[in-house]
């Protein structure tokens, strides 16, 4: 009997883990990723708590496996357009955008970047650096093959039809402007949603002065700021070029608005302090939190360790960040109701994890429901936490709600397990 194939949506940590397990079991896996690279959010992190391991080192071997495994058909720059049928016989339409660079021919030498006349904001780097219209998002990105951004490429957006600087620079004839977007029709037995999360848009909360004050950063921006393969190669320099001596880290940004605790912010904020104190010993680091949510057997230990490094943890509310002509100031109400201030030259905001913006459209396509927080909803009340109301469609990772890495991995493995058992 022919084993049905599986569609995995999202090539982040959860999607990769599930794909590898399914592939090992001999299943054909279509791994759909909307970006031009794999690895999801995790590869943006320099270190992960609580053991401060290098995320790249952790994930790179898995990425390599994904790229080399014959059972895994990796579809980059792709989106699920339509899903019909039912468990065992889903019919799926995938729209695969053109990359304009051949994965087969390109060897990732990067000769094409430099001659490209266009540079644009690098979203992967949270806009902290620019990239060319043809580029990989960061050094070490996998697959190590650039993609052309059709909106900004002069040739593709028609502003300068004759431009082919990159094509000329490429010795492998890997650049192909004629490449067209494709529609793929797949037949799969089961579908796994592993589309991950977005971060709460802190611009919605003017009280934190994000975007107005220069040195207010989001957590993701800071992750890239201290990544060795990031825009500053791990150097801690502020937008204004200075080195921070007094840093405030603000928890629960957007918690009230979202109506839930994201479960990971306390820990990654603590990770930031730990790193800052190590990097700039004389720096003053202060964490502003409401309830400390540090579940799990090893997390409090890490918190204690960081606390002992001389970090201030302040329980407070009504936090406001002001830009007093260049100098930042945190105003807050302390636990016995008194007003207090903290002067800082850098502020890091730890925003809530939210459902991806495209959750609704995907939910519609898949015919499954969202919970009231906007995430995909599972059959948790039936004690089947990775299954959806639709037979054969499963969810793993932060698509189902905020989660840390091990829980995402476990969910991915669980979903793979369910798929293997229903399709065997």
């Amino acid at each position, binding site marked *: 009997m022919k084993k049905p194939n599986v569609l995995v949506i999202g090539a982040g940590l959860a999607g990769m883990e599930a794909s590898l397990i399914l592939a090992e079991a001999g299943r054909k896996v279509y791994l759909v990723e909307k970006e031009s690279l794999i690895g999801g959010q995790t590869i943006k992190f320099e270190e992960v708590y609580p053991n401060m391991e290098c995320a790249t080192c952790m994930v790179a071997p898995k990425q390599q496996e994904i790229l080399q495994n014959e059972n895994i058909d990796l579809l980059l720059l792709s989106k699920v357009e339509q899903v019909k049928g039912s468990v065992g016989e889903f019919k799926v339409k995938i729209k695969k955008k053109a990359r304009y660079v051949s994965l087969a021919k390109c060897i990732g030498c990067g000769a094409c970047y430099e001659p490209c006349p266009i540079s644009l904001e690098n979203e992967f780097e949270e806009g902290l650096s620019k990239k060319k219209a043809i580029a990989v998002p960061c050094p070490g990105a996998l697959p190590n093959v650039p993609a052309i951004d059709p909106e900004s490429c002069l040739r593709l957006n028609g502003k300068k039809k004759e431009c082919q600087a990159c094509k000329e620079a490429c010795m492998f004839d890997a650049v192909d402007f004629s490449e067209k977007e494709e529609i793929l029709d797949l037949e799969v037995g089961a579908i796994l949603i592993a589309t991950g999360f977005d971060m709460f848009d802190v611009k919605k909360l003017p009280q934190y002065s994000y975007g107005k004050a220069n040195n207010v950063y989001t957590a993701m921006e800071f992750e890239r700021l201290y990544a060795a393969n990031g825009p500053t190669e*791990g150097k801690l320099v502020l937008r204004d070029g200075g*080195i921070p*001596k007094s840093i405030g880290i603000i928890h629960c940004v957007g918690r009230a608005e979202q109506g839930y605790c994201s479960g990971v912010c306390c820990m990654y904020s603590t990770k930031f302090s730990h790193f800052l104190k190590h*990097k*700039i010993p004389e*720096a003053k680091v202060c964490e502003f939190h409401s309830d400390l949510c540090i579940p799990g057997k090893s997390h409090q230990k890490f918190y204690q360790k960081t606390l002992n490094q001389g970090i201030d943890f302040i329980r407070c509310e009504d936090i406001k960040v002001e830009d007093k002509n260049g100098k930042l100031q945190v105003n807050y109400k302390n636990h016995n109701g008194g007003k207090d201030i903290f002067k800082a030259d850098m502020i890091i905001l730890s925003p809530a994890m939210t459902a991806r913006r495209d959750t609704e459209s995907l939910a519609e396509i898949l015919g499954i429901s969202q919970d009231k927080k906007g995430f995909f909803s599972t059959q948790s009340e039936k004690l089947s936490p990775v299954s959806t109301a639709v037979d054969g469609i499963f969810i793993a990772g932060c698509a189902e709600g905020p989660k840390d890495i091990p829980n995402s991995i476990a969910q991915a493995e669980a979903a793979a397990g369910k798929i293997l058992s229903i399709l065997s």
Partner: protein
Amino acid sequence: MSTQTESHKNHTKGVIISAKEGINKAILDIFKKSLEKKCFDAILIPVRVPDTESYAWVLLKDQSLLDEANPLPPVMSVQGAKALSSLTKHGEMTQNIAAILRPCEIRAAVELFKLKQIHLDNISLISIDCPGAMPLSDYVTDPEKYKKRFKNVLDKWGEDDSVRPVCHICNRFSLPSLLPQKSAKTSPAKQDEPNLAIPDLHIGLLGGNKEKIFLIPVNLKGRKILEKLEFKPDDSLNLWENKVNEVQDKKEKRRNEFNQELRKKIEGQEKFTAVFDECLNCHNCMRVCPICYCQQCFFDSASLNLSPETYLSRAEKKGALRFPLDTLLFHLGRMSHMVLSCVSCGACEDACPMSIPVAQIFSLVADQTQKAFDYTPGINKKEPLPLQAFLEDEFLEVETPSEATTPIEVN
């Protein structure tokens, strides 16, 4: 030193035995009695080889043969731990054996135990205050002379420098240095429990100025043995204790000075090479070393099996190449393999036909490396060997810092 006396105050009472007819006699009488009383079924002890001046380890069952035995011979012909290992490597003793060993031999035995080269079950280890041994090479030239001289060694405890240099600077010649100590990085295995103590009994000679000897029960087993021998271990042993401390302090001091001098003599590539210039690559040092337990030494260049061509190219680069090869590789390699367990027993130096101060050098390196690993070989059976264990935050200094690890200066 102070901590040592501390830890061993709990059990410093013992038996004072008169030695009017000489120390040997006194000790041997105890062993005879212990065989009669069936404390032990046999005794492992050095015995003079008939009609020669050399000594061999003998497993004695017949007490009459004890008369030829010598618990403290003037030379160390074979390291006791090696004898014990050949006796028990392949299985535990089925009968009760007593082995009388010098402190360095006991410690070597414990290291071999950790290296699974020795079984200590049913074996009572009995340590003895050790004044040191005569250099084998000297002794064989004129045994009589050196036996006499050895008497002087016993009189002027620690002062007569005719003993082997490593003995002359030995700071682990008595019981206190055999007892587990509280350690800086106290790992559970390093707790100071008297019953972790290795020797069951200790024979104290210091402070008895040859008229009496001291029998000291070190742990429960030791006490039981004394009971069987109908000894009451309640004499106070201040005499012995004070003398031990006195000699100890002297020797510590001497050891430091000596090692500083030695270091000057051998340090640096040039001097170090020169020291081993005379090495014949006979590898005797390795063969007699109690800690070198390998069937074949990795540094018998055989294991490198390089092609002649590579030697030619080396000769080409250097202009010349000395054979037999890899002398330094052998010594440094052997050092890197055993020095953390080295007990400075001096067997290697005794065995060197070219009298290279190999024991002195190894002992010096042993001091430094063992300090770095906070490890004293041969004291605690439960403590893992340094290369079997690790701590997550240690030796941070050995990693060469670089930008990523060094904090940035804020002006």
